[in-house]
């Protein structure tokens, strides 16, 4: 029988477009030190370290050995996990499983990225098939543009609808001291920004960020001794579809639909909009904030925009989404999915400061990446 697992602490760096004041190792240490402090633990209390970033972004392949000074893993079991855009959420799911296995009681999980140090679009392109995909592919932006074209034509969704997602997330980011872009924006400003890959404007897309996030997962044997309000992990699910972009069915995110069905089944959730109190979604561009909440069962296909315009996903709405400001405001890629987990845990513990949603009992986070792959974690205030 697997052990129950909770998040008992987390730390984030000051995420910025460029952090030349620190090396990658120092950036990692910044997040780790804050996470240990938040849990009242020292490095000696930690049984193991799991770390990941987007492979080859920084041109440093052995991240677990290179960063050992900063990650705290000296003479401890240290494991690297790297799955592209999903790296951060894979780290969270992997961390959960390693603790649930009973082999670790207090596991330090770290995601990081210094996007300012490389050409991220060129690097993402090399994650795609060298024979069939790379010739035309232009990284995440072009792939997401294909999806936006398909989704908007299928349901008659407009750029204005998509911009509403950016307005919400950027508005929320103002209250998050960790957010990279902290400035409100209007629908008109999004639509007036330069077109970079039709139909996506510059402000439809997430930024490139330097940042790190560390999260401490603890087993049920120690979690309540460490934290008065641990965030229990209720369920995880992930789905990988194809590896070639031409195989993907565009217009909806099937991997997320299947992963959502699994976590709802595992946790007995029937009406996610009513039963879940907050979501931190890995939505790296505007249209995803409409289409992917449909995949999560919050609205029927093509009706995500209505939910947005009604304000249901705003702070104070029925189900606030991305109180942190989301990926559209902050995107240190290898950390991005793990930040979603850290933010959900803060919400459940009541430690989310100005971005706190009142009385959070159930939270959900997602990760996205690869070739339209999806990860989900669900958390609760109650022990599962």
């Amino acid at each position, binding site marked *: 029988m697997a052990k129950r697992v909770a998040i008992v602490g987390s730390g984030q760096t000051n995420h910025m477009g460029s952090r*030349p004041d620190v090396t990658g190792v120092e950036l990692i240490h910044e997040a780790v030190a804050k996470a240990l402090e938040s849990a009242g633990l020292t490095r000696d209390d930690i049984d193991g370290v799991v770390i990941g970033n987007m492979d080859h972004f920084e041109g440093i392949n052995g991240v677990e050995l290179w960063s050992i000074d900063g990650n705290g893993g000296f003479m401890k079991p240290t494991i690297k996990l790297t799955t592209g855009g999903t790296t951060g959420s894979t780290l969270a799911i992997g961390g959960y499983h390693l603790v649930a296995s009973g082999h670790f009681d207090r596991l330090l999980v770290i995601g990081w990225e210094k996007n300012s140090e490389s050409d991220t679009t060129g690097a993402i*392109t*090399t994650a795609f098939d060298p024979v069939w995909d*790379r*010739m*035309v*592919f232009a990284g995440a932006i072009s792939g997401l543009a*294909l999806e936006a074209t*398909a989704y908007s034509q299928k349901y008659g969704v407009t750029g204005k609808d998509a911009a509403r997602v950016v307005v919400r997330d950027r508005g929320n980011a103002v209250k998050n001291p960790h957010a990279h872009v902290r400035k409100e924006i209007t629908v008109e400003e999004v639509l007036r920004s330069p077109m970079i890959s039709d139909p996506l404007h510059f402000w439809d897309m997430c930024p490139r960020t330097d940042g790190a996030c560390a999260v401490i997962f603890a087993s049920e044997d120690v979690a309540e001794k460490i934290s008065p309000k641990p965030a229990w992990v209720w369920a995880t699910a992930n789905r990988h579809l194809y590896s070639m972009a031409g*195989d993907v069915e565009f217009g909806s995110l099937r991997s997320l639909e299947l992963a959502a069905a699994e976590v709802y089944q595992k946790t007995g959730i029937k009406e996610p909009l009513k039963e879940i109190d907050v979501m931190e979604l890995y939505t790296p561009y505007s249209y995803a904030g409409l289409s992917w909440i449909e995949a999560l069962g919050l609205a029927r296909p093509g009706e995500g925009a209505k939910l947005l315009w009604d304000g249901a996903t705003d702070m104070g709405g029925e189900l606030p989404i991305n109180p942190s400001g989301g990926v559209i405001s902050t995107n240190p890629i290898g950390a991005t999915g793990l930040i979603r987990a850290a933010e959900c845990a803060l919400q459940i513990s009541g430690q989310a400061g100005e971005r706190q949603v009142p009385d959070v009992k159930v939270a959900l986070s997602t990760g996205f990446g690869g070739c339209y792959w999806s990860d989900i974690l669900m958390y609760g205030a109650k022990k599962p």
Partner: protein
Amino acid sequence: MAQKNPNLITLSSGEAFQPFRYSVGLYGSRFFAELKDNKRLMGVRCPGCRRVHVPPRPVCGPCYKRMEEWVEVGPLGTIATFTILRFAFIDPETGQKKPVPYGYGLIRLDGADTNFQHFLELPKDGKVAIGMRVRPVFEESRRGNLRDIKHFEIIED
């Protein structure tokens, strides 16, 4: 701002050159030989789901079955989705900035059940839409790779 601090030093990686040699496999090799010698586009049909996969590959991922039935597809097709790239980025194939703008699309070749990625020639009136019919424009002298097709052009159909 930290960026403007003259005391902070950064190090550049230098003019790196790191060539790779990728196998295209037996199936890819047959596809490119047909393209080069006969201007024919080939796919393979799965014995399980009956779907025709282009580009051809030995195993159907969803069914995990071996595929051996070769099928000619196209050359005409339909735009499944597309974008027009307007920002320049470093092309990892060449190390140079990619010329922009360029159109590219996922094309459902007639007889295929997956999409084929390639450049789309942008029409003069700028009108591109899902569902438009396209045909490949071949290079005169072909070398057995994806660039033997210059691009797909939109046709009246």
